[in-house]
C-alpha cells in the first residue's frame, strides 16, 4: 500500500494517457502514467491542468478511483453538459496525450487499511469514485474490515464499475453493496424509484453503536441530505466525512 505524499510543496507533473475505459455513456476512466508518482491513499484526489495552444489553461479536481499501481493512476470523469474540460477528456483526449497533474492531495477524506472500524460508504452518482478507491484498496490490502456501500444512481445504466461491483459483492468477504435508484429501477426491483431516505440508510448502513467511519460523496444536495440522516440516526458527526462534488464548471 502506498504512503501519503512525500514532504515538500507540490508541483505539477506531466501525465500521459495510457489507456481508457468507458464506464457509462457519460463517464470514462482514464489510466494515466505519471512518472515519479509518490503513491496515494484511497480517497485522495488530484488537480488536473489542461493548457491550450494559445496558453489558455483550465484546472479541475478529480478523485482517484483506484490504489496506485506503480506510476499509474486512474481517474473516472463524468461528462458535465456544456462543460469545457470533461467533454474534452471523455471524447477527445487520446492515448499518449499529455496533461499536467498535481497530487495526491487531501488527507481527510481517506481510508487507511490500518483502520479497525467498520466502514459505511454512501455514494451519489459520480461520488462513487473515491469510495471505489477505498473498496479496491481494501481488497488490495487483504483487509477484513466490514464495508457497506449504498450507491444511489438515477438508473441502472448509470452505475459505474457495474461488473466489478457485482463481482466484488460476491467475492470480497465482508463487502455488502446495495443500490438506491432515483429515476428508474431494474426489472423486478422491489421498490419504486426514490431519493435516498432514512430507511435506506438505517437498513443498509451500520448501527451507530458500532462506531463506523462514514464516507459520503456526491452532489452537494445529496451529501447534505445523507449527512443529516446519519447524524439524526445517532452517528457521531466527527465520523461522518463528506466530499461534495461540483459545481466546478465541468
Amino acid at each position, binding site marked *: 500500500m502506498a504512503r*501519503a*505524499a512525500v*514532504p*515538500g*510543496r*507540490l508541483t505539477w507533473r506531466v501525465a500521459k494517457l495510457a489507456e481508457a475505459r468507458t464506464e457509462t455513456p457519460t463517464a470514462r476512466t482514464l489510466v494515466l502514467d505519471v512518472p515519479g508518482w509518490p503513491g496515494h491513499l484511497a480517497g485522495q*484526489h*488530484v*488537480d488536473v491542468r489542461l493548457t491550450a495552444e494559445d496558453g489558455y489553461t483550465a484546472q479541475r*479536481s478529480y478523485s482517484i478511483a483506484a490504489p496506485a499501481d506503480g506510476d499509474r493512476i486512474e481517474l473516472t470523469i463524468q461528462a458535465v453538459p456544456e462543460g469545457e474540460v470533461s467533454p474534452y477528456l471523455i471524447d477527445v483526449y487520446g492515448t499518449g496525450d499529455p496533461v499536467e497533474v*498535481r*497530487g495526491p*492531495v*487531501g*488527507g*481527510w*477524506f481517506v481510508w487507511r487499511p490500518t483502520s479497525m472500524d467498520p466502514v459505511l460508504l454512501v455514494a451519489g452518482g459520480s461520488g462513487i469514485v473515491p469510495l471505489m478507491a477505498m473498496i479496491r484498496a481494501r481488497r488490495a490490502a487483504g483487509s477484513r474490515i466490514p464495508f457497506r456501500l449504498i450507491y444511489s444512481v438515477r438508473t441502472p445504466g448509470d452505475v459505474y464499475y457495474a461488473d466489478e461491483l457485482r463481482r466484488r459483492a460476491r467475492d470480497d468477504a465482508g463487502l455488502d453493496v446495495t443500490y438506491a435508484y432515483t429515476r428508474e429501477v431494474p426489472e423486478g426491483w422491489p421498490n419504486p424509484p426514490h431519493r435516498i431516505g432514512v430507511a435506506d440508510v438505517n437498513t443498509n448502513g451500520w448501527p451507530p453503536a458500532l462506531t463506523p467511519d462514514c464516507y459520503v460523496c456526491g452532489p*452537494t444536495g445529496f451529501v447534505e441530505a445523507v449527512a443529516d440522516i446519519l447524524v439524526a440516526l445517532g452517528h457521531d458527526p*466527527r465520523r461522518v*466525512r*463528506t*466530499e*461534495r*462534488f*461540483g*459545481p*466546478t464548471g465541468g
Partner: protein
Amino acid sequence: MIEPRMDLGPHLDGNVLAGPLREIFAMDVTAATSRCASCGAVGAVAALHVYANAPGMVARCPTCEEVVLRMVRTPDAAWLDMRGTVSLRIPM
C-alpha cells in the same frame, strides 16, 4: 443593523483546499483541526464549507458560517487570509 436569515449556497468541503494549500505548505493542512475565531467551534479544515465559485476560495465555519480562511491565487502570488482561525492543530 438586522441579522438576515442566511440560505446556504452551493458550497463544497474543505477537502477542495488540499491542492491549493499544498502549493504553499509542505504538509496537508486540510487534515488539521482549526478553531473558529468567531464562535470557537473546533473541526477539521476539510470539513469547512468552501465557496469556490468566486474570485477566490472562501472557507467558512460549518457552525456559524463566518469566514475562517480565504485564498486567492494570482498569476504570481498566493494570498492567504487566516484571520478567522484562532489556531491550527497540525498532526505531525
